[in-house]
């Protein structure tokens, strides 16, 4: 379903992604693990047409996202690391906008919107503005939206960041269910090793833009002679702490939050 060969992305002198290769089978849940700044999000951005690779080849369900952008985009849904909802619109309006952009027929759109909002326990709040939602509700809405156009692949970039254990648990249960009922291939990144261990069929560990290990959770543990996936992860990537540079987006979000509190 997804195949990546020798993918490279340079930002000036920095090699964010440095010769990554992997394949994900149809219907599989594949976890992409790595410390901050390892190249996870950059890889997802290249897979989802937001960034052009410096070199290398990507295939999504037989399509190249660099040359056939629009067709490739129809194949996947994505939940980004940071929010991408319009908070001035209601939950229903966000779903409607997504459905229309993806060319989902009106009848199917309404049916699936209802089904997904009920599944993610947002149906009662469908006419509330997204700005009144909690962090967990926004995440659930984003995932529900990602499923609306029945994608073949769902990308989840740290979908449980900042959620409480209840919400995380519930979220993965839904994702697993939809993986089984709709056969969607899931490509996820997370910092929670227990989640990856529980949800993913196969994993890859990326560090400094290179894949350092891939296989099932069992294989990774055997390879590193460790007891848990967390230990295996630390054995593979070392225990030094990586700091990411705060981008302008982060700064602006802080500023906006400040304003909101003052009001």
């Amino acid at each position, binding site marked *: 379903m997804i195949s990546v060969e020798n993918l490279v992305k340079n930002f000036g002198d920095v090699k964010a992604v440095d010769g990554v290769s992997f394949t994900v089978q149809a219907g599989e849940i594949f976890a992409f693990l790595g410390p901050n700044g390892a190249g996870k999000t950059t890889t997802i951005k290249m897979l989802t047409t937001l960034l052009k690779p410096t070199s290398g080849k990507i295939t999504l369900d037989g399509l190249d996202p660099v040359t056939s952008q629009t067709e490739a*985009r129809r194949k996947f849904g994505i939940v980004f690391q*940071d*929010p991408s909802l319009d*908070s001035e619109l209601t939950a229903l309006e966000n779903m409607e906008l997504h459905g229309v952009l993806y060319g989902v027929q009106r009848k199917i759109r309404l049916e699936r919107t209802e089904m997904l909002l009920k599944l993610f326990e947002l149906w009662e709040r469908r006419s509330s503005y997204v700005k009144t939602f909690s962090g967990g509700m926004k995440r659930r809405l984003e995932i529900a939206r990602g499923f609306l156009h029945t994608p073949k692949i769902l990308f989840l970039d740290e979908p449980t960041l900042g959620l409480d254990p209840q919400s995380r648990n519930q979220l993965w249960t839904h994702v697993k269910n939809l993986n089984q009922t709709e056969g969607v291939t899931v490509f996820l990144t997370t910092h929670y090793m227990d989640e990856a261990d529980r949800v993913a069929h196969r994993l890859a560990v990326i560090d400094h833009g290179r894949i350092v290990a891939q296989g099932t959770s069992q294989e990774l543990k055997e390879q590193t002679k460790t007891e848990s996936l967390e230990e295996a992860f630390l054995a593979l990537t070392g225990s030094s702490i990586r700091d990411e540079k705060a981008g302008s*987006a982060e700064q602006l979000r802080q500023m906006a939050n400040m304003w909101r509190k003052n009001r």
Partner: protein
Amino acid sequence: MNAVYILWLRELKRYRRSYAQIIASLAQPMLYLLVLGFGLGPVFQKAGNGSYLQFVAPGVVGMTVLFSSVFSGIGLLWDRQFGFLKETLVAPVPRITVMIGKSLGAATVATIQGTLVLIVCLIAGFRPVSWASLPLAFVFMILTAIIFSGLGMAIGSVLQDMQGFQLIMNFLVMPIFFLSGALFPLNDLPKVLSLMTRLDPLSYGVDGLRGALIGASQFEAVTSISVLSVVAVLFLALGGYLFSRIQL
């Protein structure tokens, strides 16, 4: 086509829901209209140019359309910072569709704002020479709105954060406004200034509005419409090109 419509609708919904913003954006034009309109009135009258309120009202409408459409276009920057832009960029529609939808939304909002200010002008005592020429005034308002929405989108596509915003305001938007003849007549100007006003697309928008509303204009209406249409296409193309190059 549906994609253009839904993105256009989004801009309108967001506009309708921000009462504070609507009121705030009407305050500045009202200052210009009332303070300058009545403050400079006597001087203008003595110079033999008639009522300044009559003269400045179309300029203030043009100014409102300029500011409103540039800001809506730059609103792209907020979409970028708050993430919604990504949702539209991964959608399976050509970038140009997204850009057109947003620009038309911005232009519609700007035209509505311009209309509101025109109503305020009427309340303040402004009277158009003939009501029949009102549709022509709307043609100029809409063309102006499209031009500067395109420009706003072009700027919004290039800017990475709000720091560049002040720069754009002071070095681009304010000069466009002051050089347009919104506040003063364009005849008998020094040569350099006269040339600069002719290069400013807003001059043709304001002049067209003035022609339609008070029957006094520098350029022929047809000339103004042609210039505005050409510039609109150019700016939309520029905005579309820059928007299509956005990488996140």
